[in-house]
C-alpha cells in the first residue's frame, strides 16, 4: 500500500480512505479523529468523534454536551482498530489531552503530530517520538529564526517586571486553552505564590485543569476583585481582551502577551504590548529539526505554517519531504 492511499488531503482535511475517517476535519463529517481541543482542530457537529478523554471533556466544555453524535475515548498508547486501520494515540506535549495519531495499515506507518512541542510544560504529558514511514509535522514556527528562549527566562521577565513595577497590574494575554494554564503553572513552579487573577473566559477551563490534578494555586476572578486588590498582581486574559473596554477596570495596567511570535520585534510593536513573553505551545525550529532527525522517518509531510523552509531543510538533510496544502490559518493568538 502506498502512503498516499492511506492518508489523503481533501476539502475537509486529512482523510484515511481504508479506515473511513478524517483527522481534525474542519467541517462536520461522519467519523473524526481529533488530536486536541483547539478550535481549529476540534470542531463540533461530527457524527462520531474519537479523541483522548481530556480532549472530549474540553470539547464538551467549549461546545456543550451535544458537540458530537457519539464519542469514544482513546487512552494514550492503547492499540485501537478503526475500520480495519490500526490506530494509536500518543502524547504530543502541546496542551492537556493533546495527542499524535499513529496510523498503521499493511506495513505503512504514518504519524500525524497535530500540534506539538518539546519545551517543558507542567500541564501535559511530554511528546513521545514514534518511529514511522511518514511523519506529518506542523510548521507554525518552521523558520530558523524561531528558536524559543528557555521558559524559565521568559517567566523571569514577568516576575522581574512585577518587582520593578509593583504598582502596575500586569495583564498578560494568553490563549485561553493551554497557554493560560501553562503560564500559571510555570509561575507557580517559579515560586510566584501571590493570587493570580483571571478573565471570566478562563474560569471553566482552569477548573477543568485543576480537576485533572494540575496545581494552579490561588486563582481569583477579575470580575470579583477590585482594582486595588489587583495592583501589582498578575492578571491573565484572552489576547483579545487586552484591546477591549474590559482593560479599563485596572489602574495603570502593564500589558503583556505570551506568544511564540513575540520573538520578532516587529510583532511586539504591532501588538502594542509593553511586556512580550516568548512562550509557545508549538515546536520551534531547533526542536523541529532535532525531532525529525530523532524519529528518522522515510518521508516528512509539512502542514500549516512555513512549509517551504522545513521542506528545504529536509532536502538538505537527505530526507524526502513535501508540503501538504491543508487549509489552515496563521495561529495569531498562539
Amino acid at each position: 500500500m502506498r502512503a498516499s492511499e492511506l492518508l489523503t488531503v481533501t476539502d475537509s482535511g486529512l482523510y484515511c480512505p481504508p479506515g473511513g475517517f478524517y483527522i481534525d476535519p474542519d467541517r462536520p463529517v461522519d467519523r473524526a479523529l481529533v488530536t486536541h481541543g483547539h478550535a481549529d482542530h476540534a470542531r463540533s457537529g461530527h457524527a462520531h468523534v474519537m479523541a483522548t478523554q481530556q480532549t472530549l471533556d474540553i470539547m464538551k466544555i467549549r461546545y456543550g454536551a451535544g458537540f458530537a453524535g457519539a464519542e469514544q475515548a482513546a487512552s494514550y498508547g492503547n492499540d485501537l482498530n478503526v475500520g480495519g486501520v490500526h490506530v494509536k494515540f500518543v502524547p504530543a506535549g502541546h496542551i492537556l489531552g493533546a495527542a499524535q495519531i499513529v496510523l498503521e495499515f499493511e506495513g505503512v506507518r504514518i504519524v500525524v503530530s497535530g500540534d506539538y512541542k518539546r519545551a517543558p510544560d507542567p500541564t501535559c504529558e511530554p511528546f513521545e517520538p514514534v518511529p514511522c514511514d511518514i511523519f506529518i509535522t506542523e510548521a507554525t514556527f518552521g523558520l530558523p529564526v524561531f528558536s524559543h528562549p528557555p521558559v524559565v527566562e521568559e517567566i523571569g521577565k514577568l516576575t522581574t517586571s512585577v518587582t520593578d513595577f509593583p504598582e502596575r497590574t500586569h495583564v498578560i494575554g494568553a490563549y485561553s486553552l493551554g497557554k493560560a494554564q501553562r503560564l500559571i503553572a510555570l509561575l507557580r513552579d517559579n515560586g510566584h505564590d501571590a493570587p493570580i487573577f483571571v478573565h471570566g473566559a478562563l474560569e471553566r477551563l482552569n477548573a477543568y485543569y485543576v480537576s485533572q490534578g494540575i496545581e494552579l494555586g490561588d486563582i481569583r476572578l477579575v470580575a470579583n476583585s477590585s482594582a486595588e486588590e489587583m495592583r501589582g498582581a498578575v492578571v491573565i486574559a484572552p489576547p483579545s481582551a487586552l484591546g477591549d473596554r474590559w482593560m479599563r477596570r485596572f489602574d495603570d495596567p502593564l500589558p503583556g502577551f505570551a506568544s511564540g511570535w513575540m520573538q520578532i520585534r516587529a510583532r511586539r510593536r504591532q501588538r502594542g504590548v509593553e511586556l512580550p513573553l516568548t512562550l509557545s505551545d508549538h515546536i520551534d525550529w531547533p526542536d523541529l529539526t532535532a525531532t525529525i532527525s530523532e524519529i528518522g522517518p522515510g518521508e516528512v509531510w509539512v502542514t500549516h505554517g512555513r512549509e517551504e523552509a522545513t521542506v528545504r531543510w529536509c532536502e538538505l538533510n537527505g530526507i524526502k519531504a513535501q508540503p501538504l496544502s491543508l487549509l489552515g490559518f496563521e495561529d495569531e493568538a498562539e
Partner: protein
Amino acid sequence: MTRLDADTGAMPSGSLKAFAELLDRLVLTPSRNGKLRLIATYLADTPDPDRGIALAILAGELSLKAVKANLFRTLAEEHIDPILFRLSYDYVGDLAETVSLVWPQKADNAGSLGLADCVARLEALTRAEAPAVVADLLDRLNPAGRWALIKLATGGLRIGISARLTKQALALYGGKDVAEIEELWHGLKIPYGDLFAWLEGGEKPKNTIIAGFSPVMLSHPLDAALLSNLDLRDYQAEWKWDGIRVQAVGQQGVARLYSRSGEDISGAFPDVVEAIDFDAVIDGELLARVPKTGRTGTFSDLQQRLNRKTVSSTLLAKYPVMVRAYDLLRLDGEDLRERPLSERRERLDTFIANLDSDRFDISPALEIPDAAALSALRANPPEPPIEGVMLKRRDAPYVAGRPKGQWWKWKRDPFNVDAVLMYAQRGHGKRSGIYSDFTFGVWQDGETGLQLVPVGKAYFGFTDAELAELDRFVRNNTVERYGPVRSVRAEPQHGLVLEIAFEGLNRSKRHRSGVAMRFPRISRIRWDKKPIEADRIGALEILLD
C-alpha cells in the same frame, strides 16, 4: 533586570545581554516615568565600567562604525543555507535581527560577555581580524545580545530616548538636580566613574571643562488674569522668538554652541561657532536668517538645519542662521549670573554692538506702557518668527531651572483648523484599551475628487468624558483594523470633525500633505459639523509663508 537566581538565569549584571534587555524594554515602555525607572534600575544593578559604557550609548556619546552590516550576512551564511537565510530575512525584514536569531546558540557561555569588554574589542578591531573577532563575540551571546551587538557594531542602534532623558534618569538615580548634571556633563569622561561615585554619595566631580554649559533659566506661562496682578514697571518685555534656545560659549579660544538641555550642537552650526571669537556666555535664540536681506526666517527655514551632526556648504549658504541674544551670563571671566537682569542687559547691549551682526544681534526690549499694550503686541507681532511675548523681572538674577515669579511667557493664541478624524490608535498605561491617539486630515483635490489627506496626530486636549465619547465613536464607526490601529468612517456626509489647535506649521517631506503641525491638540469636538464642512489643505498652506 538582573535578579534571576544564579541557577536559573545566569545573567551577569554587566553583560551585553542585560543591556540588550534594557534596550528592548525601553522601546516598548511608552511612559516617560517608566523609562526613567528602567534606566535608574539598570544603573543601580550594573557595575562599573559597564554601566558607564551603557550610559554613553544611551546619551548618544558613543557610537561605533566598526563593521559593515554585510559582514554579518556573510558570517551567518557560513552557518546556514542561503535559501533558509533568505526565507528568514524575508520574514523578519531586518538583517541584524535575522542574523541574531539564526546564529547557532552555544548554550554553555551565552550571556557572559561584558558590555565594556565587548565595546573595547569592537573599538580595537582591524579589518583583517574583524570576521574572526565578531564571530567569537556572536558565539558568546544570546539572541537579544547578538542583536544589540550587530546594531552597535554597525552604528545602527536607534534607542529612541533623548540625551536629556538619560540625564534625568541619572538625577533620579542619584537624587540630584538635573541642572547639576547638565553643567558637569561635558567635562565628564566615559565611563563616568567619578559621576557615579558622586551620585552614590561621594564627592562631586570638579568642573574642569573649558567652554562648558551653564544650565538655563526658564519661564512660566502667563495669562490675562495673572498679568493683572503684575506691576509692569518691574518687568522688561521682549518678543518670544520661535527658534531654538541656545547658549553660545567662548572661553580660552574654545567655542561651543549648546541646546537648552546642554547638548553640544556645535557640529551642526559651524557658521555660528566661527563667530564666537569672544570670552563670554550668551543666552539667546537660534533663528534662520534670509540671505542678503538681514531678515529673520521662519521656523520652517530653521528646520532645514536641525537634527544634523554635520552640515554641507550648500546648506550653510542657503539656510544661514544667527543668534538673537537676550542674556549675558559671563563676560571676560566674570560670572554675571548673580547680577540683576537690568545690569546684565546693559552689559549685553554694549557687548553685542561689537559682534558680527550677521551672526549676533539683540532681542530688543519692548515699550509697554500698560497691559493693553502688551496684549496688542502679543496679538499682532511684526515678523513671522515670533510666538508671543516675554516678561522678565528687571531685578532677577539668572537662576537655573524655573524659579517662581521671575520670567513669564505669554504665547500668541494658537491656530485652528477643522479636520476630519481618520484613524485612531489605542493608548497605553491608564489609557490602554481606549482609543486615545487620533490621526486627522483635511480635504485635498485628488484624482477622484476631494480626498482626505492626513495632516497630524493628537492625543490630548480633551476631557475624560470627551475621550469616552471619542472612543465610542471609533468603536461604532470602524472600517478596518491594523493591530492597535483602526480606520474610521470619514466620508463627506458621515464622520467626525475635530477642531484642532496648533502652534505653527512646518513643511515636511515625510508627510503626504507636505505639512507637519507643531503641538497639535483637539480643542473641540464638532459633533455639529459634517466632514465636508471641514477645512481644505489650502487653509493650512497659506500659513507656511
